[in-house]
């Protein structure tokens, strides 16, 4: 299906270039209103992301993994899905969560250090943040098996990083997806680094997308900063999956403009020069240039919008700050449907201690 973009021939799918111009073989996939909507979603994610970082700097938030620069990989992909399709994220997909419609409150509460933030209900069909690298890709394959078994026409999208492709689990997931031929899309956000480790130290292969073929799976590399390329690739892969065509591996070629997490210092392992180069390829910038050229939006609209988003995020974060901390019960009671005696005993002993302390 992606024959025209065989990564083994050094091809990469791109529809709109860094200047907001369509590439020769490109062209509009989303109409201008849809693009405007996508732009707003990316901008909202960007604002929320930058504010989270500043909250952390102010000591109001704990370790936070910024996604700045990777928005298109998430907004574009989730827009290409149906609401009934599953999302299996790792830990840097806040834009995907938002695009799916999960209240920002939940993610901020989670980042604030409260598990309650992950209690978003089942209807969003998104799994909790998964931190053990690449482990979640197998969960996605299992859900895909279940969707086919239950004859639902839902598919599964899972995210993993460039570093994650080195894990056994990632490769087992590709392999199981291939043999089972289940409806899953494994989306690699190749943001060029695994913390401080550059992409070329992860594998000797030229691209990550070509990993797929050795498992009998189709793989394609796309410009992850071009939201239309992301949308199209995911749409095509999703249609294929829905019609029984099986899994697809997508490598979104992108860049983490921020730090790995707020406790990371990128200057230790990369040059400002490199970062500047990538700022020119910002997924939001190019869409902005396009929309302005199409008179769908003005610089002024954008700054107004930005202010508005900041207000919203700030209100949400204040709610988070005034949220209640977990009680002793909270840290015990969700391990089993019914709390076993050993846990009740530990909880009661602790509560007695707290009582006496009073």
């Amino acid at each position, binding site marked *: 299906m992606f024959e025209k973009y065989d990564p083994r021939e050094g091809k990469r799918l791109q529809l709109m270039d860094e200047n907001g111009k369509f590439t020769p073989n490109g062209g509009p996939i989303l109409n201008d209103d849809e693009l405007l909507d996508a732009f707003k979603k990316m901008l909202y994610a960007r604002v929320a992301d930058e504010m989270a970082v500043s909250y952390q700097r102010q000591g109001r938030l704990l370790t936070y993994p910024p996604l700045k620069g990777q928005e298109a990989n998430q907004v574009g992909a989730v827009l290409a899905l149906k609401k009934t399709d599953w999302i299996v994220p790792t830990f840097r997909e806040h834009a995907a969560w938002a695009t799916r419609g999960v209240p920002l409150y939940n993610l901020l509460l989670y980042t604030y250090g409260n598990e309650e933030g992950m209690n*978003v209900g089942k209807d969003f069909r998104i799994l909790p943040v998964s931190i053990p690298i690449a482990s979640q890709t*197998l969960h*996605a394959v*299992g*859900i895909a098996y279940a969707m086919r*078994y239950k004859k639902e026409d839902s598919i599964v999208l899972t995210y993993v990083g460039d570093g994650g492709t080195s894990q056994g689990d990632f490769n087992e997931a590709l*392999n199981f997806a291939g043999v089972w031929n289940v409806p899953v899309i494994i989306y690699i956000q190749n943001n060029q680094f695994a913390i401080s480790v550059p992409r070329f130290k992860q594998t000797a292969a030229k691209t990550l997308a070509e990993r797929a073929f050795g498992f009998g799976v189709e793989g394609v590399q796309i410009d992850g900063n071009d939201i239309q390329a992301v949308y199209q690739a995911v749409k095509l892969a999703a249609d294929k999956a829905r019609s029984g065509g099986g899994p697809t591996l997508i490598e979104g070629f992108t860049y983490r403009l921020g730090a790995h997490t707020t406790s990371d210092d990128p200057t230790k392992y990369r040059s400002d020069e490199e970062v500047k180069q990538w700022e020119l390829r910002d997924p939001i910038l190019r869409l902005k240039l396009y929309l302005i050229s199409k008179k769908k939006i003005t610089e002024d609209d954008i700054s107004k919008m930005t202010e508005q988003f900041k207000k919203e995020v700030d209100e949400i974060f204040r709610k988070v700050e005034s949220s209640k901390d977990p009680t002793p019960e909270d840290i015990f009671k969700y391990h*089993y449907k019914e709390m076993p*005696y050993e846990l009740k005993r530990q909880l009661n002993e602790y509560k007695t201690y707290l009582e006496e302390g009073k």
Partner: protein
Amino acid sequence: MKALTLLQAVNDALKVEMSNDKNIIVYGEDVGVEGGVFRATEGLQKLYGEERCFDSPLAESGIVGTAIGMAVAGLKPVVEMQFDGFVFPAFNQIVTHVARMRNRSRGTWSLPLVIRFPYGGGIRALEHHSESTEALFAHTPGLKVVIPSTPYDAKGLLISAIRDPDPVIFAEPKRIYRSVRQEVPEEAYTLPIGKANVVRVGDALTIVSYGAQMKEVLEAAAKLAQEHINVEVIDLRTIYPFDRQTIIDSVKKTGRFLVVHEGPTNFGVGAELIAAVNEDAFLYLEAPPTRLGGFNVTFPLPRGEKHYMISTDRIVQKAKEIISY
């Protein structure tokens, strides 16, 4: 009622439950066409089709990792690790996800799945085919660990494990897979997880054990009885959450405690039960609560196996030691 071996009882439990619940999916290495290297899943593929019972690629992390996804999506995977010693590639999925999904999502997601495998030594097997790993799982918050010791228990406990809303590690004592037959009801029935079974009533000493080791423990109890020493024998059945109450009640009665298990002694199951006895029955103790466990060595190859396994005589001797303390 049919007289079944423990292995047949496991197979029977799977058959009965799969016919009751279309969401149960059974897979693993060689479980489909061949029906498992021990034949625990024999006939399931014929009965329920390739979609519900099949051979997976050779990758334990993949097996458990995909089972997590299936469970999240409403299925009830019952996966097999071919042997106790081959559960380790899946250890990361078990510890970081299987045990945690419910708490991580504050109850949004639960994982009603079962990971079953043939367990323990004494069959003169190759390396990694005789392991006792229960303490590792019992120490991991969020898991349940069940080990049956009879065909009847195996069927009832496995059905309970499958119906349990939380993940269960189900270890099947392979040494007694085929050694005894027992009447087992044809229909489905459950035995409570977390409840121990007082197999023999006595007053001289409380002996707790589980799994295949129950065989020697009961033989020892019989031998002691011939010398008019009546020991109480408790089959733990569930390693976590273990049945503290039943053990404590017994120790308060006997004043003496011995736990016997095949797995390594240090940092093992016996240590936990001794700690529990100290916590709740200290003043009743007339002798040191004692453990007779496996050595902290790699399980030996067949020629050395006899030295590792805990014989009836060693249990008798240890029991007398405690009683005459």
